[in-house]
Protein backbone atom coordinates (compact mmCIF):
# COMPACT_ATOMS: atom_id res chain seq x y z
CA UNK A 1 0.00 0.00 0.00
CA UNK A 2 2.67 2.48 1.08
CA UNK A 3 4.75 1.46 -1.92
CA UNK A 4 2.21 2.97 -4.27
CA UNK A 5 1.88 6.36 -2.58
CA UNK A 6 4.70 8.00 -4.53
CA UNK A 7 3.61 6.65 -7.94
CA UNK A 8 -0.02 7.60 -7.34
CA UNK A 9 0.90 11.09 -6.19
CA UNK A 10 3.15 11.62 -9.20
CA UNK A 11 0.41 10.45 -11.57
CA UNK A 12 -2.07 12.81 -9.92
CA UNK A 13 0.49 15.62 -10.03
CA UNK A 14 1.11 14.95 -13.71
CA UNK A 15 -2.63 15.09 -14.37
CA UNK A 16 -2.87 18.46 -12.59
CA UNK A 17 -0.01 19.87 -14.67
CA UNK A 18 -1.70 18.57 -17.81
CA UNK A 19 -4.94 20.18 -16.70
CA UNK A 20 -3.30 23.60 -16.31
CA UNK A 21 -1.55 23.23 -19.66
CA UNK A 22 -4.79 22.19 -21.35
CA UNK A 23 -6.52 25.19 -19.79
CA UNK A 24 -3.99 27.53 -21.40
CA UNK A 25 -4.28 25.76 -24.75
CA UNK A 26 -8.10 25.61 -24.83
CA UNK A 27 -8.73 29.11 -23.50
CA UNK A 28 -6.04 30.88 -25.52
CA UNK A 29 -8.20 31.57 -28.62
CA UNK A 30 -10.71 33.50 -26.54
CA UNK A 31 -7.91 35.44 -24.80
CA UNK A 32 -6.34 36.37 -28.17
CA UNK A 33 -9.74 37.35 -29.50
CA UNK A 34 -10.35 39.66 -26.57
CA UNK A 35 -6.86 41.18 -26.86
CA UNK A 36 -7.13 42.00 -30.56
CA UNK A 37 -10.48 43.68 -30.00
CA UNK A 38 -9.12 45.90 -27.25
CA UNK A 39 -5.84 46.41 -29.13
CA UNK A 40 -3.60 44.98 -26.44
CA UNK A 41 -0.58 42.81 -27.06
CA UNK A 42 -0.41 39.66 -25.01
CA UNK A 43 2.87 38.55 -23.51
CA UNK A 44 3.22 34.98 -22.43
CA UNK A 45 2.66 35.74 -18.76
CA UNK A 46 -0.47 37.85 -19.29
CA UNK A 47 -1.81 35.20 -21.66
CA UNK A 48 -1.38 32.48 -19.04
CA UNK A 49 -2.84 34.67 -16.32
CA UNK A 50 -5.85 35.45 -18.51
CA UNK A 51 -6.53 31.85 -19.50
CA UNK A 52 -6.52 30.79 -15.86
CA UNK A 53 -9.01 33.43 -14.72
CA UNK A 54 -11.69 33.73 -17.42
CA UNK A 55 -15.34 34.02 -16.50
CA UNK A 56 -16.66 31.31 -18.82
CA UNK A 57 -13.56 29.39 -19.89
CA UNK A 58 -13.69 26.35 -22.13
CA UNK A 59 -11.74 24.53 -19.47
CA UNK A 60 -11.53 26.20 -16.04
CA UNK A 61 -8.23 25.84 -14.20
CA UNK A 62 -8.24 23.63 -11.09
CA UNK A 63 -7.93 26.56 -8.68
CA UNK A 64 -11.00 28.25 -10.22
CA UNK A 65 -13.04 25.10 -9.67
CA UNK A 66 -11.65 24.79 -6.16
CA UNK A 67 -12.63 28.38 -5.39
CA UNK A 68 -16.15 27.80 -6.73
CA UNK A 69 -16.55 24.66 -4.62
CA UNK A 70 -15.31 26.52 -1.55
CA UNK A 71 -17.68 29.39 -2.27
CA UNK A 72 -20.73 27.16 -2.75
CA UNK A 73 -20.10 24.78 0.13
CA UNK A 74 -18.52 26.71 2.98
CA UNK A 75 -19.63 30.28 2.35
CA UNK A 76 -23.25 29.52 1.51
CA UNK A 77 -25.91 28.44 3.98
CA UNK A 78 -26.81 24.79 3.58
CA UNK A 79 -30.47 25.63 3.01
CA UNK A 80 -29.60 28.03 0.18
CA UNK A 81 -30.58 26.99 -3.36
CA UNK A 82 -27.07 27.86 -4.48
CA UNK A 83 -25.33 25.68 -1.94
CA UNK A 84 -23.62 22.70 -3.47
CA UNK A 85 -24.13 20.76 -0.24
CA UNK A 86 -27.89 21.20 -0.63
CA UNK A 87 -27.76 19.84 -4.19
CA UNK A 88 -25.48 17.00 -3.14
CA UNK A 89 -27.91 16.05 -0.40
CA UNK A 90 -30.79 15.92 -2.89
CA UNK A 91 -28.81 13.55 -5.07
CA UNK A 92 -27.44 11.58 -2.14
CA UNK A 93 -30.85 10.87 -0.63
CA UNK A 94 -32.13 9.45 -3.93
CA UNK A 95 -28.91 7.46 -4.32
CA UNK A 96 -29.14 5.91 -0.86
CA UNK A 97 -32.84 5.08 -1.14
CA UNK A 98 -32.32 3.46 -4.53
CA UNK A 99 -29.26 1.64 -3.27
CA UNK A 100 -31.10 0.16 -0.29
CA UNK A 101 -34.05 -0.88 -2.46
CA UNK A 102 -31.75 -2.34 -5.12
CA UNK A 103 -29.68 -4.27 -2.59
CA UNK A 104 -32.80 -5.70 -0.92
CA UNK A 105 -34.30 -6.72 -4.25
CA UNK A 106 -30.98 -8.14 -5.40
CA UNK A 107 -30.50 -10.30 -2.30
CA UNK A 108 -34.09 -11.61 -2.46
CA UNK A 109 -33.71 -12.47 -6.15
CA UNK A 110 -30.38 -14.17 -5.50
CA UNK A 111 -31.84 -16.33 -2.72
CA UNK A 112 -34.72 -17.26 -5.02
CA UNK A 113 -32.37 -18.12 -7.84
CA UNK A 114 -30.12 -20.25 -5.66
CA UNK A 115 -32.98 -22.20 -4.04
CA UNK A 116 -35.42 -22.48 -6.96
CA UNK A 117 -34.29 -24.22 -10.12
CA UNK A 118 -37.15 -22.82 -12.16
CA UNK A 119 -36.14 -19.27 -11.27
CA UNK A 120 -32.51 -20.07 -11.96
CA UNK A 121 -33.31 -21.25 -15.46
CA UNK A 122 -35.89 -18.64 -16.43
CA UNK A 123 -35.07 -15.45 -14.51
CA UNK A 124 -31.27 -15.49 -14.36
CA UNK A 125 -30.77 -15.11 -18.15
CA UNK A 126 -33.10 -12.10 -18.04
CA UNK A 127 -31.22 -10.53 -15.15
CA UNK A 128 -28.08 -10.65 -17.30
CA UNK A 129 -29.90 -9.53 -20.45
CA UNK A 130 -31.44 -6.60 -18.54
CA UNK A 131 -27.96 -5.11 -18.20
CA UNK A 132 -27.19 -5.16 -21.90
CA UNK A 133 -30.14 -2.80 -22.24
CA UNK A 134 -29.03 0.82 -21.87
CA UNK A 135 -31.51 1.48 -19.09
CA UNK A 136 -30.34 5.04 -18.49
CA UNK A 137 -31.88 5.86 -21.84
CA UNK A 138 -35.36 5.39 -20.45
CA UNK A 139 -34.71 7.45 -17.32
CA UNK A 140 -36.66 10.43 -18.70
CA UNK A 141 -39.63 8.23 -19.47
CA UNK A 142 -39.73 6.61 -16.04
CA UNK A 143 -39.70 10.04 -14.45
CA UNK A 144 -42.42 11.49 -16.67
CA UNK A 145 -44.66 8.44 -16.32
CA UNK A 146 -44.30 8.26 -12.54
CA UNK A 147 -44.96 11.99 -12.36
CA UNK A 148 -48.16 11.51 -14.34
CA UNK A 149 -49.30 8.80 -11.94
CA UNK A 150 -48.69 11.22 -9.09
CA UNK A 151 -45.40 9.89 -7.80
CA UNK A 152 -42.77 12.60 -7.83
CA UNK A 153 -39.77 13.79 -5.91
CA UNK A 154 -37.41 11.22 -4.52
CA UNK A 155 -38.95 7.94 -5.61
CA UNK A 156 -38.66 8.12 -9.42
CA UNK A 157 -34.94 8.88 -9.18
CA UNK A 158 -34.50 6.15 -6.60
CA UNK A 159 -36.21 3.68 -8.95
CA UNK A 160 -33.56 4.32 -11.60
CA UNK A 161 -30.82 3.92 -9.00
CA UNK A 162 -32.46 0.72 -7.86
CA UNK A 163 -32.55 -0.74 -11.36
CA UNK A 164 -28.86 0.03 -11.85
CA UNK A 165 -27.70 -1.28 -8.47
CA UNK A 166 -29.67 -4.51 -8.18
CA UNK A 167 -27.78 -6.28 -10.95
CA UNK A 168 -24.30 -6.42 -9.42
CA UNK A 169 -25.87 -7.56 -6.14
CA UNK A 170 -27.80 -10.40 -7.80
CA UNK A 171 -24.80 -11.67 -9.71
CA UNK A 172 -22.43 -11.34 -6.74
CA UNK A 173 -24.83 -12.91 -4.25
CA UNK A 174 -25.65 -15.86 -6.51
CA UNK A 175 -21.95 -16.51 -6.82
CA UNK A 176 -21.43 -16.01 -3.09
CA UNK A 177 -24.33 -18.21 -1.94
CA UNK A 178 -23.01 -20.96 -4.18
CA UNK A 179 -19.41 -20.54 -3.03
CA UNK A 180 -19.48 -23.18 -0.22
CA UNK A 181 -18.03 -26.34 -1.73
CA UNK A 182 -19.38 -29.86 -1.60
CA UNK A 183 -17.27 -30.74 1.43
CA UNK A 184 -18.76 -27.93 3.52
CA UNK A 185 -22.30 -28.75 2.41
CA UNK A 186 -21.73 -32.39 3.29
CA UNK A 187 -20.44 -31.35 6.68
CA UNK A 188 -23.69 -29.46 7.30
CA UNK A 189 -25.59 -32.57 6.30
CA UNK A 190 -23.68 -34.78 8.74
CA UNK A 191 -24.68 -32.30 11.45
CA UNK A 192 -28.29 -32.83 10.36
CA UNK A 193 -28.64 -29.12 9.65
CA UNK A 194 -31.97 -28.02 8.21
CA UNK A 195 -32.20 -26.01 5.00
CA UNK A 196 -32.59 -22.75 6.87
CA UNK A 197 -29.68 -23.56 9.18
CA UNK A 198 -27.48 -24.27 6.17
CA UNK A 199 -28.53 -20.93 4.76
CA UNK A 200 -27.96 -18.83 7.89
CA UNK A 201 -24.82 -20.56 9.17
CA UNK A 202 -23.00 -21.49 5.99
CA UNK A 203 -24.25 -19.93 2.76
CA UNK A 204 -24.95 -16.41 4.00
CA UNK A 205 -21.65 -15.95 5.88
CA UNK A 206 -19.75 -17.44 2.95
CA UNK A 207 -21.32 -14.92 0.58
CA UNK A 208 -20.19 -11.82 2.49
CA UNK A 209 -16.96 -11.07 0.58
CA UNK A 210 -18.89 -11.32 -2.69
CA UNK A 211 -21.67 -9.13 -1.32
CA UNK A 212 -19.33 -6.30 -0.35
CA UNK A 213 -17.60 -6.31 -3.73
CA UNK A 214 -20.98 -6.03 -5.44
CA UNK A 215 -22.15 -3.35 -3.01
CA UNK A 216 -19.26 -1.13 -4.08
CA UNK A 217 -20.14 -1.48 -7.76
CA UNK A 218 -23.82 -1.05 -6.96
CA UNK A 219 -23.22 2.14 -5.01
CA UNK A 220 -21.28 3.75 -7.84
CA UNK A 221 -23.97 2.71 -10.33
CA UNK A 222 -26.67 4.01 -8.02
CA UNK A 223 -25.12 7.48 -7.93
CA UNK A 224 -24.91 7.57 -11.72
CA UNK A 225 -28.58 6.61 -11.84
CA UNK A 226 -29.61 9.39 -9.48
CA UNK A 227 -27.63 12.00 -11.41
CA UNK A 228 -29.03 10.98 -14.79
CA UNK A 229 -32.49 10.75 -13.24
CA UNK A 230 -32.28 14.44 -12.44
CA UNK A 231 -31.57 15.52 -15.99
CA UNK A 232 -35.15 15.47 -17.28
CA UNK A 233 -36.85 16.85 -14.16
CA UNK A 234 -36.44 20.34 -15.52
CA UNK A 235 -33.30 21.23 -13.59
CA UNK A 236 -34.77 21.87 -10.15
CA UNK A 237 -32.29 20.52 -7.66
CA UNK A 238 -29.50 17.99 -7.40
CA UNK A 239 -26.07 17.55 -8.94
CA UNK A 240 -27.55 16.42 -12.27
CA UNK A 241 -29.68 19.56 -12.37
CA UNK A 242 -26.55 21.64 -11.75
CA UNK A 243 -24.86 19.92 -14.68
CA UNK A 244 -27.82 20.61 -16.94
CA UNK A 245 -28.24 24.22 -15.85
CA UNK A 246 -24.53 24.78 -16.26
CA UNK A 247 -24.59 23.39 -19.78
CA UNK A 248 -27.58 25.59 -20.73
CA UNK A 249 -25.92 28.78 -19.57
CA UNK A 250 -22.33 27.90 -20.45
CA UNK A 251 -21.28 28.05 -16.80
CA UNK A 252 -18.33 25.71 -17.16
CA UNK A 253 -16.99 26.38 -13.67
CA UNK A 254 -20.34 25.34 -12.23
CA UNK A 255 -20.34 22.13 -14.28
CA UNK A 256 -16.86 21.20 -13.16
CA UNK A 257 -17.58 21.90 -9.52
CA UNK A 258 -20.72 19.75 -9.65
CA UNK A 259 -18.71 17.07 -11.41
CA UNK A 260 -15.94 17.10 -8.80
CA UNK A 261 -18.53 17.08 -6.04
CA UNK A 262 -20.14 13.99 -7.61
CA UNK A 263 -16.71 12.37 -7.82
CA UNK A 264 -16.01 13.13 -4.16
CA UNK A 265 -19.42 11.77 -3.23
CA UNK A 266 -18.83 8.55 -5.17
CA UNK A 267 -15.37 8.12 -3.69
CA UNK A 268 -16.53 8.62 -0.11
CA UNK A 269 -19.57 6.35 -0.46
CA UNK A 270 -17.47 3.55 -1.93
CA UNK A 271 -14.82 4.25 0.72
CA UNK A 272 -17.36 3.90 3.54
CA UNK A 273 -18.47 0.52 2.19
CA UNK A 274 -14.81 -0.47 1.98
CA UNK A 275 -14.31 0.36 5.67
CA UNK A 276 -17.44 -1.56 6.69
CA UNK A 277 -16.21 -4.45 4.59
CA UNK A 278 -12.81 -4.52 6.29
CA UNK A 279 -14.28 -4.35 9.79
CA UNK A 280 -16.97 -6.96 9.14
CA UNK A 281 -14.72 -9.44 7.41
CA UNK A 282 -12.10 -9.09 10.13
CA UNK A 283 -14.76 -9.76 12.77
CA UNK A 284 -15.86 -12.84 10.84
CA UNK A 285 -12.29 -14.00 10.53
CA UNK A 286 -12.32 -13.84 6.73
CA UNK A 287 -9.74 -11.17 6.10
Amino acid at each position, binding site marked *: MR*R*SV*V*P*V*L*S*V*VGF*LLVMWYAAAVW*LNAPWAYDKATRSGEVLTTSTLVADTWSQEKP*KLPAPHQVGKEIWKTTVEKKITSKRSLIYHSWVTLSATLLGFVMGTGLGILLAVGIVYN*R*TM*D*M*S*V*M*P*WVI*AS*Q*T*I*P*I*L*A*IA*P*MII*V*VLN*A*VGISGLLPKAMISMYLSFFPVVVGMVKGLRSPDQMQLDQMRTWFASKSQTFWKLRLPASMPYLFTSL*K*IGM*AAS*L*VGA*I*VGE*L*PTGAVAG*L*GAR*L*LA*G*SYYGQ*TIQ*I*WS*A*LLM*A*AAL*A*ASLVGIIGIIQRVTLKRMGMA
Partner: protein
Amino acid sequence: MGWLIFAVVAWIVGWMLNVWLARRPPSRLTGLASPIVFGITLIAVWEGVVNGFEINQVLLPAPSVIAVRFASSTAILWVDFVQTVLKGALSGYIIGCGSAFLIAVAIDRFPFLQRGLLPVGNFVAALPVIGMAPILVMWFGFDWQSKAAVVVVMVFFPMLVNTVQGLQSTDAMQRDLMRTYAAGYWKTLLKLRLPAAMPFVFNGLKIGTTLALIGAIVAEFFGSPVKGMGFRISTSVGQLALDLVWAEIVVAAIVGSAFYGLMALVEKRVTFWHPSQRN
Protein backbone atom coordinates in the same frame (compact mmCIF):
# COMPACT_ATOMS: atom_id res chain seq x y z
CA MET B 1 -62.32 -8.60 -17.05
CA GLY B 2 -61.48 -11.00 -19.83
CA TRP B 3 -58.04 -9.48 -20.24
CA LEU B 4 -57.26 -9.81 -16.54
CA ILE B 5 -58.18 -13.49 -16.59
CA PHE B 6 -55.99 -13.80 -19.67
CA ALA B 7 -53.06 -12.28 -17.74
CA VAL B 8 -53.51 -14.61 -14.76
CA VAL B 9 -53.87 -17.67 -16.98
CA ALA B 10 -50.82 -16.65 -19.02
CA TRP B 11 -48.77 -16.33 -15.86
CA ILE B 12 -49.87 -19.72 -14.50
CA VAL B 13 -49.36 -21.51 -17.81
CA GLY B 14 -45.94 -19.92 -18.34
CA TRP B 15 -44.77 -20.74 -14.85
CA MET B 16 -46.05 -24.34 -15.01
CA LEU B 17 -44.29 -24.78 -18.32
CA ASN B 18 -41.05 -23.53 -16.79
CA VAL B 19 -41.40 -25.78 -13.74
CA TRP B 20 -41.88 -28.69 -16.12
CA LEU B 21 -38.84 -27.58 -18.16
CA ALA B 22 -36.72 -27.27 -15.03
CA ARG B 23 -37.56 -30.85 -14.00
CA ARG B 24 -36.39 -32.24 -17.33
CA PRO B 25 -32.77 -33.33 -17.63
CA PRO B 26 -30.77 -30.17 -18.36
CA SER B 27 -29.84 -29.72 -21.98
CA ARG B 28 -29.15 -26.89 -24.41
CA LEU B 29 -32.79 -26.90 -25.46
CA THR B 30 -34.29 -26.49 -21.99
CA GLY B 31 -31.63 -23.90 -21.11
CA LEU B 32 -32.72 -21.86 -24.11
CA ALA B 33 -36.46 -22.49 -23.93
CA SER B 34 -36.85 -21.57 -20.28
CA PRO B 35 -35.94 -17.85 -20.49
CA ILE B 36 -37.87 -17.51 -23.76
CA VAL B 37 -41.02 -18.90 -22.15
CA PHE B 38 -40.52 -16.53 -19.21
CA GLY B 39 -40.11 -13.55 -21.54
CA ILE B 40 -43.21 -14.39 -23.56
CA THR B 41 -45.15 -14.85 -20.32
CA LEU B 42 -44.10 -11.40 -19.13
CA ILE B 43 -45.19 -9.79 -22.41
CA ALA B 44 -48.54 -11.61 -22.31
CA VAL B 45 -49.14 -10.49 -18.70
CA TRP B 46 -48.21 -6.92 -19.65
CA GLU B 47 -50.67 -6.94 -22.55
CA GLY B 48 -53.39 -8.40 -20.34
CA VAL B 49 -52.86 -5.99 -17.45
CA VAL B 50 -52.71 -2.88 -19.64
CA ASN B 51 -55.93 -3.80 -21.45
CA GLY B 52 -57.63 -5.21 -18.36
CA PHE B 53 -57.11 -2.19 -16.13
CA GLU B 54 -57.53 0.12 -19.14
CA ILE B 55 -54.29 1.90 -18.31
CA ASN B 56 -53.92 5.06 -20.35
CA GLN B 57 -51.93 4.29 -23.52
CA VAL B 58 -50.02 7.50 -22.95
CA LEU B 59 -48.57 6.16 -19.72
CA LEU B 60 -47.86 2.53 -20.50
CA PRO B 61 -48.56 1.36 -24.06
CA ALA B 62 -49.42 -2.30 -24.59
CA PRO B 63 -46.78 -4.44 -26.34
CA SER B 64 -49.04 -4.77 -29.39
CA VAL B 65 -49.23 -0.95 -29.74
CA ILE B 66 -45.46 -0.70 -29.46
CA ALA B 67 -45.01 -3.40 -32.09
CA VAL B 68 -47.32 -1.54 -34.50
CA ARG B 69 -45.46 1.71 -33.89
CA PHE B 70 -42.14 -0.03 -34.39
CA ALA B 71 -43.26 -1.45 -37.72
CA SER B 72 -44.69 1.85 -38.94
CA SER B 73 -41.70 4.06 -38.07
CA THR B 74 -38.76 1.95 -39.17
CA ALA B 75 -37.46 4.87 -41.26
CA ILE B 76 -37.07 7.16 -38.23
CA LEU B 77 -35.64 4.35 -36.13
CA TRP B 78 -33.06 3.59 -38.81
CA VAL B 79 -31.90 7.20 -39.04
CA ASP B 80 -31.56 7.34 -35.25
CA PHE B 81 -29.73 4.02 -35.23
CA VAL B 82 -27.16 5.24 -37.75
CA GLN B 83 -26.65 8.54 -35.91
CA THR B 84 -26.34 7.16 -32.37
CA VAL B 85 -25.05 3.63 -32.70
CA LEU B 86 -22.93 3.57 -35.83
CA LYS B 87 -21.55 7.12 -35.72
CA GLY B 88 -21.53 7.89 -31.98
CA ALA B 89 -21.22 4.68 -30.01
CA LEU B 90 -19.26 2.47 -32.37
CA SER B 91 -16.56 4.97 -33.35
CA GLY B 92 -16.11 6.01 -29.72
CA TYR B 93 -15.97 2.37 -28.63
CA ILE B 94 -13.26 1.52 -31.14
CA ILE B 95 -11.18 4.60 -30.34
CA GLY B 96 -11.61 4.25 -26.58
CA CYS B 97 -10.94 0.52 -26.31
CA GLY B 98 -8.13 0.64 -28.85
CA SER B 99 -6.25 3.47 -27.18
CA ALA B 100 -6.78 2.00 -23.70
CA PHE B 101 -5.38 -1.30 -24.91
CA LEU B 102 -2.29 0.29 -26.46
CA ILE B 103 -1.64 2.47 -23.41
CA ALA B 104 -2.02 -0.55 -21.14
CA VAL B 105 0.60 -2.44 -23.14
CA ALA B 106 2.86 0.61 -22.98
CA ILE B 107 2.64 1.22 -19.24
CA ASP B 108 3.01 -2.49 -18.58
CA ARG B 109 6.76 -2.05 -19.17
CA PHE B 110 7.07 0.42 -16.30
CA PRO B 111 6.17 -0.90 -12.82
CA PHE B 112 6.23 2.68 -11.52
CA LEU B 113 3.47 3.76 -13.90
CA GLN B 114 1.54 0.60 -13.17
CA ARG B 115 1.52 1.22 -9.44
CA GLY B 116 0.52 4.82 -10.00
CA LEU B 117 -2.05 4.40 -12.76
CA LEU B 118 -3.93 1.34 -11.51
CA PRO B 119 -5.35 2.94 -8.33
CA VAL B 120 -6.14 6.13 -10.23
CA GLY B 121 -7.75 4.12 -13.04
CA ASN B 122 -9.80 2.08 -10.59
CA PHE B 123 -10.89 5.28 -8.90
CA VAL B 124 -11.92 6.96 -12.12
CA ALA B 125 -13.75 3.82 -13.30
CA ALA B 126 -16.01 4.14 -10.24
CA LEU B 127 -16.77 7.83 -10.83
CA PRO B 128 -19.91 9.13 -12.51
CA VAL B 129 -17.98 9.77 -15.73
CA ILE B 130 -21.24 10.34 -17.58
CA GLY B 131 -21.23 13.83 -15.97
CA MET B 132 -18.49 14.76 -18.44
CA ALA B 133 -21.14 14.69 -21.17
CA PRO B 134 -22.17 18.39 -21.01
CA ILE B 135 -18.52 19.50 -21.08
CA LEU B 136 -17.64 17.30 -24.03
CA VAL B 137 -20.76 18.43 -25.90
CA MET B 138 -19.52 22.00 -25.42
CA TRP B 139 -16.06 21.15 -26.71
CA PHE B 140 -16.90 18.99 -29.69
CA GLY B 141 -20.21 20.44 -30.84
CA PHE B 142 -23.67 18.91 -31.13
CA ASP B 143 -22.97 16.29 -33.77
CA TRP B 144 -21.77 12.74 -33.32
CA GLN B 145 -18.17 13.71 -32.55
CA SER B 146 -19.10 14.82 -29.05
CA LYS B 147 -21.04 11.59 -28.47
CA ALA B 148 -18.04 9.57 -29.58
CA ALA B 149 -15.88 11.58 -27.16
CA VAL B 150 -18.21 10.78 -24.26
CA VAL B 151 -18.07 7.10 -25.20
CA VAL B 152 -14.25 7.22 -25.36
CA VAL B 153 -14.07 8.67 -21.84
CA MET B 154 -16.54 6.12 -20.52
CA VAL B 155 -15.00 2.95 -21.92
CA PHE B 156 -11.36 4.00 -21.52
CA PHE B 157 -10.73 3.31 -17.84
CA PRO B 158 -12.55 -0.02 -17.42
CA MET B 159 -10.68 -1.25 -20.49
CA LEU B 160 -7.32 0.10 -19.24
CA VAL B 161 -7.64 -1.45 -15.79
CA ASN B 162 -8.71 -4.80 -17.17
CA THR B 163 -5.93 -4.97 -19.74
CA VAL B 164 -3.22 -4.03 -17.24
CA GLN B 165 -4.51 -6.67 -14.86
CA GLY B 166 -4.63 -9.23 -17.65
CA LEU B 167 -1.04 -8.54 -18.67
CA GLN B 168 0.02 -9.27 -15.09
CA SER B 169 -1.87 -12.55 -14.96
CA THR B 170 0.96 -14.83 -16.13
CA ASP B 171 2.84 -16.55 -13.34
CA ALA B 172 6.60 -16.70 -12.79
CA MET B 173 6.84 -20.29 -13.99
CA GLN B 174 5.38 -19.43 -17.41
CA ARG B 175 7.60 -16.39 -17.82
CA ASP B 176 10.63 -18.45 -16.82
CA LEU B 177 9.73 -21.00 -19.44
CA MET B 178 9.69 -18.25 -22.08
CA ARG B 179 13.09 -17.14 -20.84
CA THR B 180 14.49 -20.66 -21.19
CA TYR B 181 13.25 -20.53 -24.78
CA ALA B 182 15.35 -17.34 -25.14
CA ALA B 183 12.23 -15.37 -26.04
CA GLY B 184 12.65 -11.60 -25.96
CA TYR B 185 10.15 -9.01 -24.69
CA TRP B 186 8.11 -8.88 -27.89
CA LYS B 187 7.99 -12.63 -28.37
CA THR B 188 6.93 -13.13 -24.74
CA LEU B 189 4.29 -10.45 -25.16
CA LEU B 190 2.84 -11.91 -28.35
CA LYS B 191 3.02 -15.61 -27.52
CA LEU B 192 2.39 -15.67 -23.79
CA ARG B 193 1.22 -12.51 -22.11
CA LEU B 194 -1.30 -11.15 -24.62
CA PRO B 195 -3.06 -14.51 -25.04
CA ALA B 196 -3.11 -14.91 -21.24
CA ALA B 197 -4.57 -11.41 -20.93
CA MET B 198 -7.42 -12.12 -23.32
CA PRO B 199 -10.05 -13.18 -20.73
CA PHE B 200 -9.48 -9.86 -18.94
CA VAL B 201 -9.44 -7.87 -22.18
CA PHE B 202 -12.77 -9.36 -23.20
CA ASN B 203 -14.17 -8.60 -19.77
CA GLY B 204 -13.32 -4.94 -20.41
CA LEU B 205 -14.71 -5.09 -23.94
CA LYS B 206 -18.00 -6.56 -22.70
CA ILE B 207 -18.39 -3.97 -19.95
CA GLY B 208 -17.71 -1.34 -22.60
CA THR B 209 -20.56 -2.42 -24.90
CA THR B 210 -23.30 -1.25 -22.54
CA LEU B 211 -21.35 1.81 -21.43
CA ALA B 212 -20.89 2.86 -25.05
CA LEU B 213 -24.62 2.80 -25.77
CA ILE B 214 -25.48 4.56 -22.52
CA GLY B 215 -22.85 7.22 -23.16
CA ALA B 216 -23.99 7.92 -26.70
CA ILE B 217 -27.67 8.14 -25.73
CA VAL B 218 -27.28 10.21 -22.57
CA ALA B 219 -24.88 12.63 -24.28
CA GLU B 220 -27.70 13.44 -26.71
CA PHE B 221 -29.80 14.72 -23.81
CA PHE B 222 -27.35 17.63 -23.60
CA GLY B 223 -27.77 18.68 -27.20
CA SER B 224 -27.81 16.97 -30.57
CA PRO B 225 -28.87 17.49 -34.17
CA VAL B 226 -32.52 16.61 -34.82
CA LYS B 227 -31.87 12.89 -35.02
CA GLY B 228 -30.50 10.23 -32.75
CA MET B 229 -31.99 7.88 -30.20
CA GLY B 230 -31.37 10.08 -27.17
CA PHE B 231 -32.81 13.11 -28.96
CA ARG B 232 -35.89 11.13 -30.02
CA ILE B 233 -36.43 9.75 -26.54
CA SER B 234 -36.22 13.11 -24.81
CA THR B 235 -38.42 14.93 -27.33
CA SER B 236 -40.99 12.13 -27.58
CA VAL B 237 -41.30 12.05 -23.80
CA GLY B 238 -42.06 15.74 -24.00
CA GLN B 239 -44.81 15.05 -26.57
CA LEU B 240 -46.05 12.08 -24.51
CA ALA B 241 -45.57 9.85 -27.56
CA LEU B 242 -44.48 7.00 -25.35
CA ASP B 243 -45.05 4.33 -27.96
CA LEU B 244 -42.24 5.83 -30.02
CA VAL B 245 -40.04 5.98 -26.90
CA TRP B 246 -40.67 2.31 -26.29
CA ALA B 247 -39.89 1.53 -29.92
CA GLU B 248 -36.52 3.28 -29.44
CA ILE B 249 -35.97 1.27 -26.28
CA VAL B 250 -36.66 -1.93 -28.19
CA VAL B 251 -34.01 -0.88 -30.71
CA ALA B 252 -31.58 -0.05 -27.90
CA ALA B 253 -32.25 -3.38 -26.20
CA ILE B 254 -31.72 -5.33 -29.41
CA VAL B 255 -28.55 -3.43 -30.27
CA GLY B 256 -27.19 -3.74 -26.72
CA SER B 257 -27.83 -7.47 -26.53
CA ALA B 258 -26.50 -8.09 -30.02
CA PHE B 259 -23.34 -6.07 -29.34
CA TYR B 260 -22.74 -7.92 -26.07
CA GLY B 261 -23.55 -11.26 -27.67
CA LEU B 262 -21.12 -10.59 -30.51
CA MET B 263 -18.32 -9.85 -28.04
CA ALA B 264 -19.16 -13.00 -26.06
CA LEU B 265 -19.05 -15.01 -29.28
CA VAL B 266 -15.64 -13.63 -30.28
CA GLU B 267 -14.44 -14.28 -26.73
CA LYS B 268 -15.50 -17.89 -27.01
CA ARG B 269 -13.48 -18.26 -30.19
CA VAL B 270 -10.38 -16.51 -28.86
CA THR B 271 -10.24 -17.86 -25.32
CA PHE B 272 -11.43 -21.40 -26.01
CA TRP B 273 -8.64 -22.66 -23.72
CA HIS B 274 -9.87 -20.84 -20.61
CA PRO B 275 -11.59 -22.95 -17.89
CA SER B 276 -14.71 -20.76 -17.94
CA GLN B 277 -15.26 -21.56 -21.63
CA ARG B 278 -14.94 -25.34 -21.25
CA ASN B 279 -17.94 -27.19 -19.92
